[in-house]
């Protein structure tokens, strides 16, 4: 089944120059392995096609049940150069939460994700 990340995680994003960072945090510790497996740098790059023009890097923070993504070349030049409404990348967090991932039925059952 397909599950949207809003059901599994919360997030905060910000900027460093033309790079947006998105911290993706599992709502429960037992969701974290699912995020590690499914929310890869490649999938995130694909999700943000047309928005992120550079590489996507991913870092794991198992201590916080969180992943940190760096989306390079995403903010129209960044800082004061950018003409974007969201020049600071603050809404990249919720944009990532739109992503849907595959969870098999048994796993969804175990994690209590089936309604």
């Amino acid at each position, binding site marked *: 089944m397909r599950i949207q990340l809003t059901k599994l995680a919360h997030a*905060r994003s*910000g900027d460093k120059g033309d790079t947006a960072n998105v911290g993706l945090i599992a709502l429960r510790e037992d969701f974290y392995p699912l995020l590690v497996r499914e929310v890869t740098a490649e999938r995130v790059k694909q999700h943000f096609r047309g928005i992120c023009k550079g590489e996507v890097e991913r870092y794991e923070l198992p201590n916080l049940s969180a992943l*940190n993504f760096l989306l390079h070349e995403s903010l*129209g030049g960044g800082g*004061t150069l950018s*003409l974007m409404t*969201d020049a600071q990348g603050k809404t990249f967090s919720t944009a990532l939460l739109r992503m849907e991932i595959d969870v098999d039925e048994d796993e969804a059952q175990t994690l209590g994700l089936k309604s």
Partner: protein
Amino acid sequence: MKEKIRIASGQGFWGDLLDAPVRQVEGGPIDYLMLDYLAEVTMSIMQKQRARDPMMGYARDFVPLMKQILPACVERTIRVTANAGGVNVEGCANAVREVARELGLSGKFRIGLVTGDDIMPRIDELLERGIELRNMDTGEPLSSVRERIQSANVYLGAWPMVEALNRGAQIVITGRATDTGLTLAPIIHEFGWRADDWDKLAGGTIAGHIIECGAQASGGNCQYDWRNIPDLANVGFPIAEAYPDGTFFITKHEGTGGRVNVPAVKEQLLYEMGDPHSYITPDCIADFTTVHLEDAGPDRVRVFGIKGRPATDTLKVSISYSAGFKAVGTLVYSWPDAYEKAQAADRTLRARLERLGLHFDQILTEFVGANATHGPLAGEPSPDLAEVQLRVGVRGQDRKAVERFTKEIAPLILTGPPGVTGFAGGRPKVEEIVAYWPALIPKTEIAPRVEVSEA
């Protein structure tokens, strides 16, 4: 040695809630108040202010604030660390001395000044000696924008502030100092940490990172369970309660709004994070993958387990340079077919700019209400949208072209698609773009200066 110290965050940026630092002083026990005033391009604004008036060039909000809180700070020996000095630390300190005189507090406390961050006068000498100050993001050498530089300041760390505190300063005013240093310095000073206590220094640095954005660690901008975060109107700013072993608690004053819990602190930990293994400051390298959090009561989170590594031998330099001009114009289109009308207006506008022969480095069109924040991820907008804001921005080197653009927005109301409004604010303003150039410089090039004197 004290068993613990409480450091209160009073400002997350220059322009944050004006009464937050007052409430931190009056709302309960604290030992230190830290105030971060300097965003990346703030220094260039201050350079311009000082060029017009040699008395200016610092965060002026700091002075009326001191007038409000100085009596309580002196009476309760609350110490203040603030990077309010901007490009005129001495001017800022003089203004505070004047306030002290007015309040009859002259001679009752000591002021510490930290300078040595401003390398603007040394740029040519540094470039000549082969210190290229290459852009950390693009790799370009600084010489490519040499003529357009407006300010150049090194980020100083905690240690010069520690020296000021060791010499009895109650109010420490710096120029460009790291946000984290404003919190770390009091902890080093109180607990006598050494320059190679890397784990502890990393702990104090991460405490600084958590509270440096003000209420963003105590319920503000918090996605987790946001509907149930209580009383943001009365939000309490965060307080770091630090211990000699390098652990700390994040909390806030009793009776304030907002919320401090593990999810809120996690969100702030990840804010503006790069490689979490290596959070580099002048004082240490902090490893965010070693941070452990646990709820320790209502609005109280324990932070422990943090590991650090030796500091690097460079300091970061924040350079600002003039990079052209920009303007942004907006109009609002209403139902029916709001999005389609806004698109038609954009095409009309662009055709007119073309006919006028105006050229820009970039023209960006966004449709607020349809795709301005999530772009194509938002999907195709409904034809039933109640309204859409057309938002067009241009950027270029020619001020005249940008100015001409600002005169093409209002005419769209009478000469473009129907159902349009929202021009009450007048013509868009042309803004000079002051861009940010991050670079590195060897620590050996920089000698911070510390002065401490009676107020």
